[in-house]
């Protein structure tokens, strides 16, 4: 949107702003249209009896999700969450306080589903779902990145993300979808990735990448196999990794690590996407469909391990939901899930995060690094919200905080953490998650990034931090856009595996030696390739 707005000034200390009511009022992000809505099973435009449809959907969701039911009933309005949302801190709009955002939903729930709300609406703040309320829903539930920071501080664990997902599901059911999420889901469910890269384009990209790496490393033939049947590892990564900086530097890192380990691996053109926007719109069914593509790819390619690249909510969906949705992990009963269980190597956690894999190799001394390659950097780590608050790594308490830091410290000499209250489970979101990473939401993205930028500025000033490492494609894209708005270098955001990539010492290829041997050229190439894969 072309609308101009002020970039927040970064304060020395983060303060709770005074309320500015209505400052983030607006129309919300671009609305979805029929061609994106219908394939997901949603009406193409606002249905005529939308209020009834919405109330019925609310009733259905509260009886299907304990989170929704319990969270709607349990809030005491204590105010503990009111200063915890980065969008509130950055925008000052009171409707961005988690409890106020939930109350957009809760007030309607009360009106229609509770005794007090039916008979004493004014007393308990119960409201009708009218056009104004629906506008507020659309606007403010698309100013929530579902980062769950508020839930960490709530005495009842009330998670605004669950309410925001439910609200979006209700809106989709009445035909008011968000364009960005639903268009992307369409691509993911038909082409296999969010960017809509078809197989030939993907193959070309990977070939280019191989050439580039070979050149850069002085002849190490790091391979990026696509659809290679029988490979050990299937890598599911955000499609941003195939595309742009800084993401692609992370992909280079993964390839180098796989190469050094000598493991066989592959990407799938059918399921080339790790991100699952089904979570953002709250739809169990859509999320499951997207996850099933991955199960199918794993089955078709006969892999024994499924691994997830650097992507925050992809990892959440994989770690927390794949087992539930499709039986990747510990076993569902349907025939495909069982087949997958037989096929997977259960000596490894399934699915596994690329950080867990690299961490394990480092622990076992299988990788060597020249840490000085990163000496021009002083690195800090941004805990991506979904990784930090909704997943684990390594099977140890807090592993999701420990493992990435361990990996960074293994490849860099200079590491500094940001202020304690802004990292780990209390991490501030990048401001672009939850289906907000679209230009029409730039204002809230920039404002929501303020608390993270404030903490970054402190370590940049005090400790000379010049590199921000992250393990989420959305964080990386978001930071590339917002860092310059706060006078930071947009290239200071890097993948953790980019740092790995820069420091890793690659075994020099055998090719040179083999070429001297009296053999035919074709044999040479075959031999070399065998050695590499």
């Amino acid at each position, binding site marked *: 949107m072309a609308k101009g707005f002020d970039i927040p000034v970064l304060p020395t200390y983060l303060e*709770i702003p*005074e*309320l500015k009511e209505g400052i983030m009022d607006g129309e919300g992000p671009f609305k979805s249209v029929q061609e994106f809505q219908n394939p997901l099973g949603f009406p193409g435009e606002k249905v005529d009896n939308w209020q009834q449809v919405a109330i019925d959907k609310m009733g259905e969701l509260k009886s*299907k*999700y*304990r*989170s929704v*039911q*319990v969270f709607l*009933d*349990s*809030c*005491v*309005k*204590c*105010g*503990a969450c009111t*200063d915890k949302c980065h969008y509130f801190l950055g925008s000052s709009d*009171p409707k961005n306080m988690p*409890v*106020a955002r939930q109350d957009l939903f809760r007030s309607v729930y009360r009106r229609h589903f*509770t005794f*007090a709300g039916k008979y*004493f609406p004014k*007393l*308990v*703040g119960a409201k009708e779902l009218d056009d104004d309320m629906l506008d507020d829903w659309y606007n403010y539930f698309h100013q929530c990145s579902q980062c769950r920071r508020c*839930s*960490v*501080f709530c*005495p*009842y*664990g*009330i*998670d605004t993300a*669950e309410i925001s997902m439910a609200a979006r599901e209700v809106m989709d059911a009445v035909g008011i979808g968000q364009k960005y999420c639903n268009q992307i889901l369409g691509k993911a469910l038909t082409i296999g990735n969010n960017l809509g890269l078809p197989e030939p384009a993907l193959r070309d990209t990977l070939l280019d990448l191989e050439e580039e790496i070979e050149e850069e490393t002085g002849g190490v033939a790091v391979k990026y196999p696509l659809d290679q049947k029988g490979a050990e590892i299937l890598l599911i990564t955000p499609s941003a990794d195939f595309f742009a900086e800084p993401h692609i530097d992370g992909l280079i890192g993964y390839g180098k690590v796989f190469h050094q380990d000598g493991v066989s691996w592959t990407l799938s053109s059918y399921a080339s996407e790790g991100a699952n926007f089904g979570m953002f719109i709250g739809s*169990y*069914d859509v999320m499951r*469909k997207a996850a099933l593509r991955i199960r*199918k790819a794993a089955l078709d390619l006969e892999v024994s391990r499924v691994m997830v690249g650097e992507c925050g909510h992809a990892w959440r969906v994989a*770690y*927390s*939901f794949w*087992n*539930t949705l499709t039986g990747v*992990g*510990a076993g*569902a009963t*349907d*025939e*495909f899930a069982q087949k997958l269980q037989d096929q997977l190597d259960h000596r490894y956690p399934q*699915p596994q995060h690329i950080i867990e894999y690299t961490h394990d190799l480092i622990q076992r001394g299988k990788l060597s690094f020249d840490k000085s390659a990163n000496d021009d950097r002083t690195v800090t780590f941004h805990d991506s919200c979904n990784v*930090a608050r*909704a997943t*684990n790594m390594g099977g140890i*308490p*807090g592993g999701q905080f420990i493992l990435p830091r361990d990996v960074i410290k293994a490849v860099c000499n200079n590491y500094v953490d940001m202020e304690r209250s802004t990292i*780990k*489970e*209390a991490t501030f979101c990048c401001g672009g998650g939850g289906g907000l990473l679209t230009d029409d939401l730039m204002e809230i993205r920039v404002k929501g990034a303020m608390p993270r930028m404030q903490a970054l500025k402190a370590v940049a000033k005090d400790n000379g931090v010049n590199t921000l490492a992250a393990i989420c494609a959305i964080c990386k894209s978001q930071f590339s856009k917002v860092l310059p708005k706060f006078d930071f270098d947009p290239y200071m955001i890097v993948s953790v595996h980019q740092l790995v990539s820069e420091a890793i010492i690659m075994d020099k290829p055998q090719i040179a030696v083999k070429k001297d041997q009296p053999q035919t050229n074709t044999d040479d190439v075959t031999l070399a390739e065998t050695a590499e894969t």
Partner: protein
Amino acid sequence: MSVISIFFTALFYISLIVFLVGMARKIYQFWITPAPLKIPTAPTPLTQTGVVMRMMREVVLFESLFKSNKWIWLFGWLFHFGLLLVLIRHIRYFWPDDLPDIFLLTQPFKYAAFAMVIGLVGLMLRRIFVERIRYISAPSDYLMLIMLLIIGVSGAVMTFTSNHTDIIMVKEFASGLVSFNWANLPTEVHFLVHIFLVFVLMAIFPISKLLHVPGIFFSPTLNQVDDARLKRHISPWALKQEQEHATRLEQTLGKDE
């Protein structure tokens, strides 16, 4: 029995039934509503024991609230802990016979009324004077605090000032409610206001925000074990849906697009 005694006796039973039936229904509703996805929030326990410990810390110490805001924690905890001690001390009134010696130990709990009232006053002041908490407050939020404050203050007035109520009558009335030997109750206004509001509070428990009491135990972000990769977690509706659609979906997905 006097009319007023009959009224309060009836009110007690009505409130109690509303409370019990309402809470049972609500807890049943929480119980049967499935949690289809694993959504525990960090710092997440990886074992069942860890979850029990986490819930204990939340319920007893209000751990998350402590991390969140020290003032709300202080007032909230003072109020709840004070209320707990005071409630324990109230058992003596409902005890039909002579008190066992153990109740001597609960005698000092009467001072917890001060903690309770201080906590409530603090919470009320925050609600009134902190702009963002005022913004999220509905009339019922104030009303609830006012009711609890009146209950606390009226109780404290009877205990710590010369406005004592006939404690023998109180005991006869209260223990009579429990043992169905109904008796008259004292009619001092402090006392009547005190128990009237307690009965009202009991009755509105299942339809108000007081539902946070059972709610906390059902909160999936707090009570789930983080073992998503080890154990499959699936809800009945999702399993049914899966059995109906799994094969068909797999075939659909299998098509070349």
